[in-house]
């Protein structure tokens, strides 16, 4: 038992908590029976305050390891504390890939369920939940085996619930077969937002993976210029020397926290310019490794330290297709506010799922990284919230560190239904996080 200062990946909102690492379901039931408030934590990659509980108990899932043999149909049982990185290291050499991974391999399976993570293939494959066959969930009233056919209500309520229904200990995942560890990538540069969005609407169906990087700082005619990369898995026929190697495990470290203000309006703008110009104008069928296509930022460990002692916030929202102009309005608002923002990530979402708190819904999603420090930032983001609500969209709780509680029920209209299911397995309200307190997801 130790008191530890925790933050999310954005390094804002520090919380002092007692961190414990239970190793069995009995340990977990013991934690719950003590009556204390608890929340689960994996590798701490959610950006805000979802996996911390200041003044309370935080339960690490890292002792729940173990990866079963992958059977012929591609199903595998894994401990919830296993990271995407650890699973891929074993599965890729056998020709299996995790069908949905977020932008980093440093998330646990439990975290992937808690955030119901999505990847660049949401328009084809949906979110992580679509590939989970079953899971074990330990709650204050006992342990459950859940699947879409066994207590489906609790199964879906747990997807995207940021750990507020209990502690996931293990799951069975349907993997996806791959022939090589290479991707065939098409890259295209666009000088404005409208043309890249049009290209995505027309052409995304031809690709399993699609993502655009949008420059939110460029002004005038170049506002919203973008680089679109789309890809499919390479087969034996596509590449000369096909191999199945797991991702490399080392990364460049950022050994200390950068000085305040290293990433400011000018340095970020220069980076955006460099990034944009270094992309090829148009390239078809370039072979890239799985790691460099899916998880480019994993090449640098602790890159969040570059934002300095004040940290940063990530703002990710989605809006339905009818409100696609909201994407342009948001970029316009950001560009006008002159806030520093790294190239934003624009994706298309396919249909959402049955989970009341899952983030993705059909349409567009945009994610922005913004350093804390500008006094205009809190107000600008509140304005964006208003625009997103008006467009019937929502922000992603796994990224959030600043949303106002009154917006949650509007963005997630099924929140009351969720709280009812939560109270069934957590009658005393012991599953609490700083995020839950901030957004009123405690059910007082």
């Amino acid at each position, binding site marked *: 038992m130790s008191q530890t200062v925790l933050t999310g990946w954005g390094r804002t*909102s520090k919380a*002092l908590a007692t961190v414990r690492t239970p190793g069995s379901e009995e340990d977990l039931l013991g934690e719950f029976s003590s009556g204390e408030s608890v929340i689960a934590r994996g590798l701490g990659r959610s950006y805000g305050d979802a996996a911390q509980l*200041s*003044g309370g108990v935080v339960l690490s899932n890292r002792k729940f390891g173990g990866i079963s043999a992958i059977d012929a149909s591609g199903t595998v049982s894994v401990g919830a504390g296993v990271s995407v990185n650890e699973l891929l290291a074993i599965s890729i050499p056998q020709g299996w890939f995790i069908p949905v991974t977020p932008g980093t391999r440093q998330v646990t399976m439990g975290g992937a369920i808690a955030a119901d993570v999505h990847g660049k293939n949401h328009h084809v494959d949906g979110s992580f939940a679509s590939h989970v066959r079953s899971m074990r969930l330990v709650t204050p009233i006992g342990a459950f085996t859940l699947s879409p056919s066994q207590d489906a209500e609790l199964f879906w309520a747990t997807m995207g619930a940021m750990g507020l229904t209990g502690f996931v200990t293990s799951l069975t995942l349907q993997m996806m077969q791959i022939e090589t560890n290479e991707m065939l990538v098409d890259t295209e540069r666009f000088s404005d937002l409208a043309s890249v969005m049009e290209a995505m609407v027309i052409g995304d169906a031809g690709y399993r993976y699609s993502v655009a990087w949008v420059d939110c700082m460029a002004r005038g005619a170049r506002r919203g210029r973008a680089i679109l990369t789309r890809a499919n898995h390479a087969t034996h026929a596509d590449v000369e020397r096909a191999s199945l190697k797991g991702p490399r495990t080392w990364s460049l470290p950022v050994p200390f926290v950068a000085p305040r203000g290293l990433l400011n309006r000018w340095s970020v703008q220069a980076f955006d310019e460099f990034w944009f110009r270094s992309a090829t104008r148009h390239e078809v069928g370039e072979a890239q490794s799985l790691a460099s296509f899916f998880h480019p930022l994993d090449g640098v460990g602790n890159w969040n330290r570059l934002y300095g*002692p004040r940290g940063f916030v990530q703002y990710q929202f989605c809006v339905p297709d009818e409100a696609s102009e909201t994407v342009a309005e948001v970029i316009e608002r950001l560009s006008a506010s002159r806030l520093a923002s790294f190239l934003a990530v624009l994706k298309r979402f396919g249909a959402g799922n049955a989970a009341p708190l899952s983030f993705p819904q059909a349409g567009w999603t945009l994610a922005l990284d913004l350093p804390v420090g500008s006094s205009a930032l809190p107000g600008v983001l509140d304005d964006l919230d208003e625009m997103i609500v008006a467009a019937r969209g929502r922000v992603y709780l796994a990224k959030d*560190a*600043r949303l106002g509680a009154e917006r949650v029920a509007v963005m997630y209209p099924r929140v009351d239904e969720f709280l009812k299911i939560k109270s069934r397995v957590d009658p005393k309200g012991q599953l609490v996080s700083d995020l839950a307190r*901030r957004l009123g997801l405690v059910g007082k």
Partner: protein
Amino acid sequence: MENAFGQPQNVVVFGGSSDIARALTKKLCAARAHTVILAGRSQALLDVAASEAQEYGATKTDTVLFDAEEPEHAARTVTDAFDKVGDQIDLVVIAVGLLGDQKSDEEDATSAARMMTVNVTWPVAALAEIRRQLVAQGRGRILVMSSAAAVRIRPNAYLYSGAKAGLDRLCVGLAQSLEGTGVRLQLLRPAVVRTKMTVGVAEPPFTTGANEVAENVMRGLASNDLVIWSPPILRYVFFLVRHLPTPLWRKLADR
């Protein structure tokens, strides 16, 4: 719960009817504050401040009466105010202070002692209880109103300036003692602020309005800096002031 920008939801303000406290409360409510407990000396003034808070978005307000000349009751005042929140406390503001009248106070033992009681003793007594309760909670933030005048004592206002200096230095130590508890203390050092406390006082350089101070506090909450200066440039001005030779300082300060 406070958010990534240090914007709180549950706030307690001691000295809640002061102009700076009111300006700050409004900004806090416009951001994320929904529960605001205001403590002060005058029910009428507190009621005005409370209705302002509601106008700016607070959904629950309440008031507590106390007298800063009675530090023996400070702990009870703190407990009363915290109980009225009915939830965890995110931010406690201590905006208690008395400018006094140097000319008459300096020759009257009772008045001189009162300057210390209101500006130092009451806040320190209250801080003891605030510290105890927030540390038990495992989190929270305290903002203490000091003054730029606390950095170097002004000969012609040594009672106010010196009392604030006492509180200021003590709080620097208190802030450091809180490391590792999850509780954070920040000091606000404003220049002269145009308020009802300073009506009739000639305006020295860097004088600002209460609104500007509140804005600098909002930025300071996000920065987590130990000292919040208002205006921010004072950080550098007072670095120089601190090192001025005494004869030169007296000339400047006594003008």
